[in-house]
């Protein structure tokens, strides 16, 4: 993507707590109305942002309610970009077991632990996901094209 000036830009800063993730999600739902994406996509964007923020709380900050999450939302003519920044533990970028749809006929095969559904949802809904760790800050970029 060639960097250009966004038509709209907004910055959210929250303490890394579950209740604040709700605020983030609802805010993104509202901001999405500035895009040509329809209502159903606004809801899916909200879901992605909630999943990403929850993952930061769970994995980067290990549920310790001490961290902060910054979310930058930029709306361009052809896409919307979300950039998360946090100062928690870097993402493990080595290949991880992926989410697999459950077999309705084989209950015993259903996992007892996390199904890794959040990452699957983000990658299914967003057109592009990019991560980098730079000088102690995690940057997660999520892009949805119109």
């Amino acid at each position, binding site marked *: 993507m060639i960097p250009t000036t966004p038509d709209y830009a907004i910055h959210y800063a929250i303490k890394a707590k579950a209740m604040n*993730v709700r605020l983030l999600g609802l805010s993104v739902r509202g901001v999405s109305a500035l895009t040509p994406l329809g209502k159903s996509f606004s809801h*899916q964007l909200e879901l992605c942002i909630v999943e990403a923020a*929850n993952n930061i709380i769970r994995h980067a900050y290990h549920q310790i309610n001490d961290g902060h999450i910054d979310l930058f939302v930029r709306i361009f003519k052809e896409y919307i970009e979300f950039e998360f920044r946090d100062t928690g533990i870097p993402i493990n970028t080595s290949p991880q077991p992926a989410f697999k749809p*459950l077999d309705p006929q084989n209950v015993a095969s259903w996992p007892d632990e996390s199904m890794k559904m*959040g990452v699957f949802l983000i990658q299914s809904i967003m057109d592009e996901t990019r991560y980098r760790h730079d000088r102690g800050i995690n940057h997660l970029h999520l892009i949805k094209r119109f």
Partner: protein
Amino acid sequence: MDLETEKYDKFLLVSLNAKRLDSSISREFETALNDWIAKGETRILLDLSLVDFMDSSGMGSMVSCLKKLKTGNNGDDLMLCGITEQVLSLFKLTRMDRVFTIFDSMSSAFKALY
């Protein structure tokens, strides 16, 4: 989190009076469902008609309870009704619409179960 229950002879109806089933309440929700299962409830109909947002933690709590019931006797189940279009999109993306028994509404659930 506000849960209302009503006991019918064929199932326990649980209505979730919350707009969001997410990480803020999913543990409490799962605990409540598990408590009813521990008390002997084997068929639960969950009314989600007020829920307009669900994330993977909410889904995960329901899957956990469904697994518990499904590994019991044949016929034990956690059934869902009143799912909104937005929440249904999560079920379809994850193919959980093939895993859960889903009714359009409470009335269609009652028609099917009686």
